[in-house]
């Protein structure tokens, strides 16, 4: 009996590595600490009422952001571990199996559990406020999306200490990811972690499309919609066309693994190329999904901090919309070397290049927004300015990759790694950081310390170039991706070593950011105006942090940069827009169901990973039960009475 238990434990828990024991201890201690703090300060009720059951878009947004920053840390630690292993030839720091797990989790976490949720967090924070709306279209669904993401991410991360992680790359090409070559549970953790959070992403996509189309403030015609909101719309359109394909692809891979189906296996008629074909139908649009909102953020910031209207509004919108649709027609550029023949390669090479055109137009419009403006260098703007050269260079190398016959020499080399980090970090991460700094006061009511922020900015930037520029040359010198070590004879170590230094510099930049946040919380610089940056759009017209109902009375929009124009009018001595009398505000009630349902999904995923139907089936029943409970619940909303609104508004005004 005891032996059986021992056997089980050593199979169930990942063992044999100090790193993992370290993680086990860290996780255990953190959990104990959290439980202790919550109990000691009697915060369990608060946690449940204010966070776990909330459907308020602002809180959901904050939860997304906290979770994704933690994931940035996890993914970043993975990156630094990899870079350490690659710093010298023949390093013994990580063995091959371990290295393979780490780059796989690094890729998955960074894109799916860092970039996506950080993006959704910013959607949640900013979009309803920019629209002048009380919440998103479907607040309940919104909370559910968050919890699904969260549980999916937990499931995926758990594999580090339980059962073992996936190790066949962030897109898990079969047959390597099939049972025949990856018999462990890691690959199933991968499938269910992504699948569960993917459902959440799809629902968020739908939610925000409806929000933007149906909930714009009166008077906000399409030509007056703020650019970030436009970018969210284009990103969400891409989500709804791309994610269903991911759902199918992963489901089929799971059927292969669980039921012995033969979609992508080597034998039984399976065809792994079909998987590659399908995963990129999602994978390529995915990278534009994450970069389009960054474009939106840059647009807001560039015009705010240049104190000038955004240049070429119509062009900008058109460019984004065409990128989001065009992104669906380029997927084959990730497997030019599969040998599909010249016609196919050429078609997809050209569709890929075409994307450079609208992207370039956006760059020029940003430049000409600054042109004849007055640029102030606050942290959000610094990240924005740094983005331009970085993304342009990364985009150019993307164009080089898109030349199919040249890609035969770039494919799967460090040239490619350098390309995508340059667009992902220079575009996506810089963009989201910029957004985070920009909307931080709106979220929490205080500003982040600018001085430490600038340190973090410079360290990140220098670190970035030191880390990734050498990788272009490594690629051209024949170094392929996903190698756990290399020999001295290759002549790669100087560049690799440099790259590692750059990686650690970025890590240092991250530490500065953590310090910045801690410092700013301690020496709180309150934002009493609600408009710390002299903003242009509606979110800056209300107090920081925004009250529960956002707008006491629904704003009526008359101009593109409505709040800016309003301020101009007031400055010119004209009367502000009249505000209608207060009315009771209709609000959605909190609900425990999103949280509970996501836990049930977690159980389904966990049960299926280990083939334990006794967990999966109750989980599935729980999912249906919570769905029905929601369907039968007709008591989903309430009204905030006028006097309460008055009290809240007065308090906010007193703060000013």
């Amino acid at each position: 009996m005891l032996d059986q238990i021992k056997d089980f434990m050593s199979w169930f828990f990942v063992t044999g590595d100090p790193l993992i024991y370290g993680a086990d201890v860290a996780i255990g201690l953190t959990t104990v600490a959290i439980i202790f703090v919550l109990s000691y300060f009697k915060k369990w009720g608060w946690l449940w009422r204010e966070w776990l059951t909330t459907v308020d878009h602002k809180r959901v947004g904050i939860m997304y952001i906290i979770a994704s920053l933690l994931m940035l840390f996890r993914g970043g630690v993975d990156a630094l571990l990899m870079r350490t292993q690659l710093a010298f030839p023949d390093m013994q720091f990580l063995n091959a199996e371990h290295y393979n797990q780490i780059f796989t989790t690094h890729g998955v976490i960074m894109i799916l559990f860092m970039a996506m949720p950080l993006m959704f967090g910013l959607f949640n924070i900013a979009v309803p406020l920019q629209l002048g709306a009380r919440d998103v279209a479907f607040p309940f669904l919104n909370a559910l999306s968050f919890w699904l993401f969260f549980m999916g991410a937990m499931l995926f991360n758990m594999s580090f200490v339980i059962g073992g992680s996936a190790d066949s790359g962030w897109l898990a090409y079969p047959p390597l990811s099939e049972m025949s070559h990856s018999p462990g549970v890691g690959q199933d953790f991968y499938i269910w972690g992504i699948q569960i959070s993917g459902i959440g992403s799809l629902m968020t996509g739908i939610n925000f499309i409806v929000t933007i189309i149906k909930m714009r403030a009166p008077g906000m015609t399409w030509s007056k919609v703020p650019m970030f909101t436009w970018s969210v719309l284009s990103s969400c359109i891409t989500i709804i066309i791309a994610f269903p394909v991911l759902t199918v692809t992963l489901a089929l891979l799971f059927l292969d693994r669980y039921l012995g189906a033969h979609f992508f296996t080597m034998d039984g008629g399976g065809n792994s190329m079909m998987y590659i074909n399908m995963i990129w139908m999602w994978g390529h649009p995915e990278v534009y999904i994450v970069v389009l909102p960054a474009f939106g953020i840059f647009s807001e910031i560039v015009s705010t901090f240049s104190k000038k209207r955004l240049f070429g509004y119509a062009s900008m919108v058109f460019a984004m919309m065409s990128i989001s649709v065009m992104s669906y027609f380029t997927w084959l550029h990730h497997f030019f070397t599969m040998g599909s023949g010249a016609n196919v390669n050429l078609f997809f090479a050209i569709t890929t290049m075409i994307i450079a055109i609208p992207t370039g137009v956006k760059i020029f419009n940003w430049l000409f927004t600054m042109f004849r403006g007055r640029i102030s260098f606050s942290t959000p703007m610094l990240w924005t300015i740094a983005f331009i050269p970085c993304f342009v260079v990364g985009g150019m190398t993307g164009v080089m990759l898109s030349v199919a016959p040249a890609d035969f020499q770039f494919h799967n080399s460090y040239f490619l790694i350098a390309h995508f980090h340059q667009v992902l970090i220079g575009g996506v991460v810089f963009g989201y950081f910029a957004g985070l700094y920009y909307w931080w006061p709106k979220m929490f009511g205080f500003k982040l310390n600018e001085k430490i922020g600038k340190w973090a900015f410079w360290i990140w930037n220098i670190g970035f170039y030191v880390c990734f520029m050498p990788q272009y040359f490594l690629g051209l010198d024949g170094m392929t991706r996903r190698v756990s070590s290399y020999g001295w004879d290759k002549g790669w170590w100087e560049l690799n070593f440099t790259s590692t230094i750059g990686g650690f510099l970025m890590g240092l930049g991250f530490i500065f950011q953590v310090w910045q946040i801690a410092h700013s919380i301690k020496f709180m610089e309150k934002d009493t105006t609600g408009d710390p940056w002299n903003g242009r759009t509606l979110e800056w017209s209300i107090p920081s942090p925004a009250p529960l109902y956002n707008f006491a009375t629904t704003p009526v929009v008359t101009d593109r940069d409505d709040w800016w124009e309003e301020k101009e009018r007031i400055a010119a001595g004209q009367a502000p827009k009249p505000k209608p009398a207060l009315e009771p505000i209709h609000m959605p009630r909190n609900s425990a169901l999103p949280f509970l349902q996501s836990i049930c999904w977690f159980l389904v995923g966990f049960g299926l990973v280990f083939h334990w139907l006794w967990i999966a089936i109750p989980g599935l029943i729980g999912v249906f039960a919570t769905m029905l409970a929601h369907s039968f619940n007709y008591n989903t909303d309430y009204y905030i009475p006028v006097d309460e609104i008055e009290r809240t508004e007065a308090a906010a005004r007193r703060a000013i």
Partner: protein
Amino acid sequence: MAHSANHLGTHAAAAHGAGHDGHDGHHDLEEMRKFGFWIFLITDVILFSALFAVYIVLHGNTAGGPGMKDIIEMPGIIAETFILLTSSFTSGLAVLMMNRGSKGGLIGWLIVTIALGACFIGLEVAEFAKLIHEGHTISTSAFFSAFFTLVGTHGLHVSLGICWITAVIFQLARHGITPVTQRKVHITSLYWHFLDAVWIFVFTIVYLMGVM
């Protein structure tokens, strides 16, 4: 009465002042939900298109085993098809009844619809059971994997539809025809018509072109 007009995100009241009919806020909200559901259906279209792509690409990969020609039994399939077509019609009639305010008619036609749906599922399950009994399972070959998955996913959708309409019937019985239940009926019927449309493609591509 002004209360519901100032609904989250629905700004009719702010624009037009107070004094609306109480239903209006709800009306907008329900319209929004229908639109959301419509987008969900579009994503489902894409989901099925991916399954179709897989089926079309893999249907010849039979690993030496039987292909569609060898296993097909048209009578059952034809029956399934007409049953589903009819159920799409009856779910339309249910909506008509609802628009006339006839709760009884509405529930009646909904019951007919789910009964037809259940027949459809019954036939499909019988077809699958027979195949499995003959030793053709999802792991027999890529062709069978694709076949069972495509047809089965549709079947799963229909089964969920049945459960869902049942839930709506209970709500109708309790609450009557209100804007909320009305929206639910609309959405389920949209879903049902959509499944019918998907089936037409399953029928054409998998079965008809399979025997051709």
